[in-house]
C-alpha cells in the first residue's frame, strides 16, 4: 500500500494491544465530544482509578519544563472514551489497573495505589510492563497519545497542549512559506 500510509495503518492495526482501542466498535465517537470540555467530574472512573491512570499516563508523557499528559487532561479523555466510543474497553482498562497496582505493590510493599509511589518506583513499574510487553503498557501508551493529540472536543489535548508539544497547528488554511526549506529555496 502506498497512499494511505502503511505506517499509519500498522499503527492502527498492528501496535499490539493498543489496537484494542482502535478496533472499538466506535459508532458514537462524536458523543464523546459533546460531553467534553466541561470535565468537572468523571463519568466512569472512580477517584482511585483516575488518580492511577493520571499518574501512569504522566509517566508516558511527563511534565517537565513543558506540560505533559496531566496538563493535557488525558485522564478526562480516557473517562469520556470509556463512557462513549470505547465502552467495551472498560473491562480491559480495569484489569490493566489491577496489574498496575500489583506491580506497584511489588515495588513498595503494601502499596495500594500506583499514584502514591515515588517517581522512580512509578518508572520502574512502567518499565517492567514494557519489558514484559504487557498489553496494558501498549494501551496506556495509545490512550496517552490519543488523549494528547486528538481534537480537544474529546476532553484531552486541553488548551491544545498536545498539539503544541509536537508543533502541529490545526488551521484550515496555510500559505507559503510552509517551512524553512521552501522559504530558503
Amino acid at each position: 500500500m502506498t497512499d494511505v500510509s502503511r505506517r499509519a495503518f500498522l499503527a492502527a492495526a498492528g501496535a499490539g494491544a493498543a489496537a484494542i482501542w482502535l478496533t472499538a466498535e466506535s459508532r458514537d465517537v462524536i458523543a464523546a465530544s459533546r460531553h467534553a470540555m466541561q470535565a468537572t467530574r468523571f463519568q466512569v472512573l472512580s477517584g482511585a482509578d483516575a488518580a492511577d491512570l493520571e499518574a501512569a499516563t504522566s509517566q508516558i508523557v511527563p511534565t517537565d519544563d513543558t506540560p505533559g499528559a496531566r496538563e493535557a487532561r488525558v485522564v478526562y479523555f480516557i473517562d469520556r472514551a470509556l463512557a462513549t466510543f470505547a465502552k467495551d474497553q472498560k473491562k480491559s482498562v480495569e484489569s490493566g489497573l489491577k496489574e498496575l497496582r500489583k506491580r506497584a505493590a511489588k515495588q513498595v510493599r503494601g502499596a495500594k495505589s500506583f499514584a502514591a509511589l515515588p517517581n522512580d518506583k512509578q518508572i520502574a513499574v512502567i518499565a517492567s510492563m514494557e519489558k514484559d510487553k504487557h498489553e496494558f503498557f501498549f494501551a496506556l501508551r495509545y490512550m496517552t497519545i490519543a488523549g494528547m493529540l486528538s481534537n480537544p472536543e474529546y476532553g484531552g489535548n486541553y488548551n491544545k497542549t498536545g498539539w503544541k508539544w509536537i508543533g502541529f497547528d490545526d488551521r484550515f488554511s496555510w500559505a507559503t512559506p510552509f517551512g524553512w526549506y521552501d522559504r530558503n529555496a
Partner: protein
Amino acid sequence: MPDHTHDHPPLTPLQQSTVKYRPEDEVDFVVVGSGAAGGVVAKELSTAGFRVVVLEQGPWRTEKDFVHDELKTWNENLLTNNWKDSPNTFRKTEKDKANVKPSVLYGRGVGGTSVHFSANFWRFREIDFKEASVKGTVPGTGLVDWPITYQELEPYYTKVDWEVGVAGAPGPYDPPRSRPYPMPPHPAKSTGALLEAGAKKLGWKPFPAPMAIVSKLYQGRSACAQCGFCLGFGCEVRAKSSALVTVIPAAVATGKCEVRPNSYVRKVETDAKGRATGVKYFDANKQEIYQRAKAVVVCANGAETPRLLLNSKSNLFPNGLANSSGVVGKYLMFNGGGYSNGVFEHEVNGYKGIVATRLVWDLYELDPKLGLSGGGGFDFRFADTPINFVMGSLPPDSPTWGSAFKKLVENTYNRQLSCYGHTTSLPVATNSISLDPSLKDAWGVPAIRMTYQDHPNDMKLYQYFADRGEELLKAAGAKQTWKAKPESQDFSVHLLGTCRMGNDPKTSVVDKYNRTHDVKNLFVVDGSSLVTSGRGQPTMTIQALAFRAGDNIAGFAKRREI
C-alpha cells in the same frame, strides 16, 4: 464551535438527483459504484441522453460531513469500508490457509475513494502500455501489452485534466499531451524544495507533481486552502477534484441520472440468453431490490468488481459472470514501493499543504543492467496526522515513553519526512481476489478472499527504490535516515488488474472498449481493467479509461450495438 473548526464561508450545496426511476423501469444503464470510474461513466452516459441509475453502497456525504478529526475518521472508518461489516480473508499463496484480516481499503460513499485520496494524478507513459514487448516478459508473470496505446488514451487524459481539474506543469519526462494543463501547479512545500535540491545533486530532473486539486478558482470550486488534510479525509472546501464534486454533479445536472446511495449490489442478473437484465441490491434497510436495466456497467473497484462477478454465477455462468476465461479476479496488482525516511535540521512542516508537490521520474525506466522489470517515481511527503505519527512513524529504536520520548517527538514532528518510491508491481496469475468459501459479510454475501505475494522481481525493485530514496534524502541534507526492509504486501488501497483488458477472450475479461467478452451488455470500468500497474498512481488512468469507455458505450448504445 471549537476554535480549531474552520471558518470558511459555507459552500452552496451540490444538487442531489431530481430524477427518480422505479426499479421496474428498465433504465438504459445501471452503474454499480460512484467513484472515480463510475462517476465518469455516469456523467458521460447521462450527458449523451441515456437514463442512468448509479448504485452506491455508501452514503451521499457533503462537505459538512468532512471533519479535521483524526480519531473519528480513522477509528470509525468514517469514509471507507469497515472490516466489521465487510470482513475479508487473506493468504499469501493458494497453499496457505486464509485468515480473517483487513486487506483492502476503499471509499464507501458517493465519490468513492476519490473523496479521501491524496489526488496524485500521474498519467501513464507510453512504456506502461507496451512494457512486455519493449522490455521483455518476466517468467512467472502475465506481463503483456495493453490492447490500446498511450496515443489512443491521450485525448481522454486531456479530458480528465480539464473536466475533473488537474493542476500541473509539463515535466522533462512527460508523454505527449494535446492540450496544456488547465491550471498551474501548487507551490513547492519544504518537502518539494528538499526533493528538488536532492534530485539536482544526483543529476536528476525534478518537476511539479500533477495533482487533482485545484490551484485556482476552477469551475466554481475555490482554490486549495493547503489545510493539509487530504489523505484519508474529505475536502471541506471542494478543492480536491473528487468524483463527488466534479462528474457526479455534472451527471445529476443532466436530469437523466439518479444516484442512489446506501444501495449495495450483490448480484448482476442475467436471462436465459445470457444477457444482463439488471442488478439485485440491498437498500439501507437491507431490503432486496431488483433494478432493471438494458445494460450494466460495473465500476465497483478492483476488489469488489471481481467479487460481484464471481457472486453473479448462474446455470449459464457457473464460474461467475463474464468468467469463461477463468481470469476474473486474477492478476491482482497493488503498486509497490520502496520507502525511506529522514529527519532534517530545520522545520519542514510537512503536515501543512497537499501531500506531494514535486516528483522525480528519472528512474521511471531502469538501466537494463540491473536486470529488474518495471520502474518508478519518487516524491517526498509527510502525510501523518498527529496520532498516527507518534504511534507509528518515529525513527527506529526511539524511546516510546518518558522524558526522552517526549523530547524526541518535540524535535521530530516538524522535521521528519518520507521518501516514497512508487513502483510497478507485476501481474501474477495466482495473486487474486476470489470468494471465501465460508466467510460472509453482514448482508450474507460471500466475502473477499485475497491471495497475494509480491513477485521476487518486485521485492528487489522495492529494495532498490528504498535504497535510491535514502540516497535522495541524504543528498537533500537529511541528518538522519532509515528505511524498513520491504515485506511482501498484504494490504492495499490500489486494487488493480482483476478483470484485465485484452483482445483474446481466453486470456482477458474485457475487450479494448471495456465490454466483457462474454456478455454483450455488461461492461467493467475501473482499476480492474488495468493490464499493467503503472508507476504507482493509477487513478488518472482509471478516469481516462472511464471517459473512453463512456464515449464508446454511448456510441454502441446509439448504434444499437449493445
